[in-house]
């Protein structure tokens, strides 16, 4: 089980640094899902890390670290994306910009690169809450954990994931 129950010195900054290091992938993935441009992603990752640190003293070690991290990261990212939407509207950033830096045009497997590009574009088109569900589904989190993170019932998760899969099949 992914908990830090066995971890000693819960309040110590080093304990937080260790947890963040172990689960940094969650921060990266959430930042990438909600921010298109590289500098924006780096800012969002920093903001998530700052909020995780802020929330760390209240973290209950008996509960799953990943659930706690996803909750904080998604809440920060959804708030962030609402503010960024205004800036991007005024800056007129084209939809595809920011997708290219993670797609390697020189990669030998063009089909995979094309899949990656399509997936990135699909993610960028989703509203913030649907994007959270998509991220958790693609990350293969159990439905119980998705329900805990989003604050909806498992049955509701199941229905929403079913619809999401259908949309993925239809649009990609």
């Amino acid at each position, binding site marked *: 089980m992914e908990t830090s129950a066995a971890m000693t010195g819960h309040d110590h*900054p080093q304990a937080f*640094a260790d947890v*963040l290091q172990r689960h*940094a*992938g969650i*921060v*990266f*993935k959430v*930042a*990438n899902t909600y921010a298109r441009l*590289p*500098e924006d*992603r*780096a800012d969002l*990752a*920093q*903001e998530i*890390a*700052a*909020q995780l*640190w*802020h*929330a760390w003293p*209240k*973290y209950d070690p008996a509960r799953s670290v990943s659930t*706690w991290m996803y*909750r*904080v990261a*998604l*809440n*920060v990212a*959804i*708030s962030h994306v*609402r503010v960024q939407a*205004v800036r991007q*509207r005024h800056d007129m950033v084209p939809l595809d910009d920011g997708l290219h830096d*993670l797609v*390697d045009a020189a990669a030998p497997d063009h089909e*995979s690169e094309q*899949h*990656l590009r*399509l*997936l990135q574009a699909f993610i960028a088109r989703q*509203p*913030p*809450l*649907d994007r*959270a569900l998509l991220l958790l589904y*693609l*990350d*293969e989190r159990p439905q119980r954990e998705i329900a*805990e*993170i*989003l*604050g*909806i019932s498992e049955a509701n998760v199941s229905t929403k994931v079913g619809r999401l*899969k259908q949309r*993925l*099949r239809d649009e*990609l």
Partner: protein
Amino acid sequence: MDLDDIKSAWQALDARLARQDALQLELLRGQKQAQARRNLRPLLVGMLLQAVLGIGLVLLGVGCWRNNLEVPGLLAAGIALHAFGVLHIALAGIVSGLATTLDFAAPVLAIQKRLRLLLRIQVLNSNLCGAPWWVMWVLVVIGFAGLSPTPHVGPTPTWIWISLALGIAGMVGTWWWAARGSRGPRDPLARMDDGADGIRRNLRAYDELERFERE
């Protein structure tokens, strides 16, 4: 592209992200640790100033009505200032309380609902504590006049009636404009003065949350 391809693409993206230098976390920098609290500071400073203004209005109102128990106009102005001051303090307290107790480790929908509540109360705050200043500045002038130990004798000056009439018209117009803007983000009659898109953005957030819960 089937679901397996999609998941493979996601995993490839995951691996690529892990290698990105740009996303390396600069952990535990003092300035970043403080950032979370700093984000709320402008709102809290604004609410503190509103509460201080509210205390000033209460003091002015109480001074005015206690000094003029026999003069109906000044008594009414004093009570109105007192009530307006209490409203300023109460709404400042509610907004600050909601903002400072936001727990980002709560479930996503719970936090989004909390943020929606906070935005609604902020809109209520600006409509109840902001728009009435069209009229309240006249009452503040009357309130200061009511503190004078020598009470005003004679009819109410004409400028007060004119100012009150203009103020009421302005306040009703402001409320009408605000109500018109809250029809919906896609309504063609939604407010045209929403230059930074803030109001429509909030309305979109309400729409999206309701849709996500409903579906």
